[in-house]
């Protein structure tokens, strides 16, 4: 729900409640005033009646007239007469056959020594009309006011919030990795102007951090390569020494192996960081199926060495858009993976179609959960060869370049599938 709609909705609901309550209160107040007026007039008439009875000791009037009628009826005297009381009553209009509301004052008065019940009435018909007219007018005007303010409010707030929506649209288009700073207008309203200032500062900071982090990752990796080169060089010099014992050589070999692993790890992490930072932009159409075939041909010596057979089911070629360097990295990681986790005398199968490319290999079943297969530093077994980044790189490339990679295992067959993502 949009902010403006929400605000209008709440406003409408609130004013409706307020209007209803005020209409009710208004009705009650008017009614109270009218009753008050009628009742005070009835009291005056009661005083007139009393004065009349005191002077004349008698009361007679025709019971014919309905309006301003005073009904006097004798009552038995035994009981204590109740105090005077007002009540509403309806009396049938004999011409219209309509019930007409009356206010009635009932009291007890001795007339000529005999207790009589006296009821004085006044018609409420005009006052009711008045009340109806007032109520109707009020409802009408309040309704119009309500609708009017609602319309005005939505127009006004739409205009007031415009800078906010402009800002929102600009932020949506903002690209963190670009070198262009965030361009926001300077609206006249203080809050929006402050908001834009804050956003601009935040964006600048984010951009700066992003670029420095990117640089840092790269520089850190590069700076690491030089000491590693130094270690390698010194090891190579050290092993030229004639007097080395077998144990010493073994130690040196361990140092050498470890430094080579760090170098591989470092290169893997650097590549991942570069892909994450979208530093490879020049995508080209790549025939992955053909490249995979070539990759397997390049590895024929290793395949022969491990006695792994390669077979391919005929099918259409799988074409994708990828930076060539990453296409190569993707395939070499997949092929290395298929060879590494194979067993001697195993096989590799390639299935290619226009929509996907499958690489299946025989091999022992996984020890780890298949979902974690694409995580960084996830290694099957205690292999010292692998640094555990290969499939993470594959996943990262796929995620960044609209591809999907999935893993299935069935009956000793590991299958990695590359497919386009919708």
């Amino acid at each position, binding site marked *: 729900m949009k902010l403006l709609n929400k605000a209008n909705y709440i406003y409408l609901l609130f004013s409706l409640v307020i209007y209803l309550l005020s209409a009710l209160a208004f009705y009650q107040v008017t009614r109270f005033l009218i009753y008050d007026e009628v009742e005070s007039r009835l009291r005056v008439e009661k005083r007139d009646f009393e004065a009349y009875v005191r002077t004349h000791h008698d009361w007679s009037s025709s019971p014919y007239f309905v309006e301003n009628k005073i009904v006097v009826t004798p009552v038995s005297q035994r009981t204590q007469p109740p105090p005077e009381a007002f009540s509403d009553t309806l009396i049938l209009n004999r011409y219209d056959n309509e019930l007409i509301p009356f206010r009635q004052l009932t009291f007890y008065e001795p007339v000529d020594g005999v207790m009589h019940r006296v009821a004085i009435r006044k018609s409420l018909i005009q006052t009711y009309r008045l009340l109806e007219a007032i109520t109707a007018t009020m409802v009408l005007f309040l309704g119009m006011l309500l609708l009017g303010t609602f319309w005005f409010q939505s127009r006004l707030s739409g205009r007031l919030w415009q800078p906010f929506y402009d800002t929102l649209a600009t932020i949506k288009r903002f690209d963190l990795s670009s070198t262009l700073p965030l361009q926001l207008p300077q609206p006249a309203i203080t809050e929006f102007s402050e908001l834009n200032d804050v956003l601009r500062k935040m964006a600048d900071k984010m951009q700066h951090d992003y670029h420095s982090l990117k640089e840092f990752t790269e520089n850190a990796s*590069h700076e690491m390569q030089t000491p590693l080169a130094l270690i390698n060089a010194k090891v190579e*010099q050290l092993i030229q020494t004639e007097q080395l014992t077998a144990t010493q050589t073994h130690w040196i070999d361990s140092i050498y192996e470890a430094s*080579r692993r760090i170098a591989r790890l470092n290169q893997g992490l650097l590549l991942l960081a570069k892909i994450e930072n979208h530093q490879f932009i020049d995508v080209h159409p790549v025939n992955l199926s053909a490249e995979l075939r070539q990759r397997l041909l390049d590895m024929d010596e290793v395949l022969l060495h491990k006695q792994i057979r390669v077979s391919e089911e005929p099918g259409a070629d799988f074409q994708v858009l990828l930076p060539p360097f990453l296409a190569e990295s993707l395939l070499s990681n997949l092929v290395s993976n298929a060879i590494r986790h194979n067993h001697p005398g195993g096989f590799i199968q390639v299935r290619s179609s226009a929509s996907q490319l499958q690489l299946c290999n025989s091999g022992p079943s996984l020890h780890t959960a298949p979902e974690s297969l694409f995580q960084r530093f996830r290694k099957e077994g205690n292999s010292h060869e692998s640094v555990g980044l290969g499939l993470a790189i594959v996943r990262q490339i796929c995620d960044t370049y609209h591809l999907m990679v999935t893993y299935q295992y069935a009956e000793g067959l590991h299958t990695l599938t590359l497919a386009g993502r919708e």
Partner: protein
Amino acid sequence: MKVLVVEDERGLAESITDYMTKEEYICETAATFREADEKIHLYQYDCIIVDLTLPDGSGLHLIQTLKQLVATTGIIIISARNSLEDKLKGLEIGSDDYLTKPFHLSELNARVKSLLRRRQFGGHNELRFHEITVVPHARRVYVNEQLTTLSRKEYDLLLYFLSNTDVVLTKASIAEHLWGDNIDSADSFDMVYSHIKNLRRKLLDKGAADYVQSVYGIGYKFGSL
């Protein structure tokens, strides 16, 4: 042969110089851009080995300057940057080779030698080691004047050995020289072993002495007995 090593990491420059000096090259070093710039203006080198990231400038500018001064000097870039653009850029402005750090000294040495061979004799020279003769441009190997047929990998292996005689070559450096760094070392070490075994047998069959020695499982040495 005069070689200039432009590298700001002293220890690394020292190692390269030591290794090269053994190969009877005259080696000089420069640790900064200014120093290197001065040297290439003053002296002539057959080959320079340049690090791209120097504290006071880029190795690429140095290469551009050098190309204007002496076009024949061989140039090998050693860089921590392993990006395709850097490699292409380096080759575009006239460098002959590009090595990514960390590299093997033996590999650097082999590349320098191969570069100098191409530069100085157009590749039309022969490599001789006692009774073994290699003719690089024809990819032929003779032992005691007899043609010896080697596989592609065996030939590469022999050439690598001949570029680095009398030094211990690690298995990893041999494997990387033959296959690049895309294969697992366990597999490649086995394959190195079998290629060395075959090469040795072929050379022995033609009457060559056994020059290949295994060094404590860390590597192999090809040299005079």
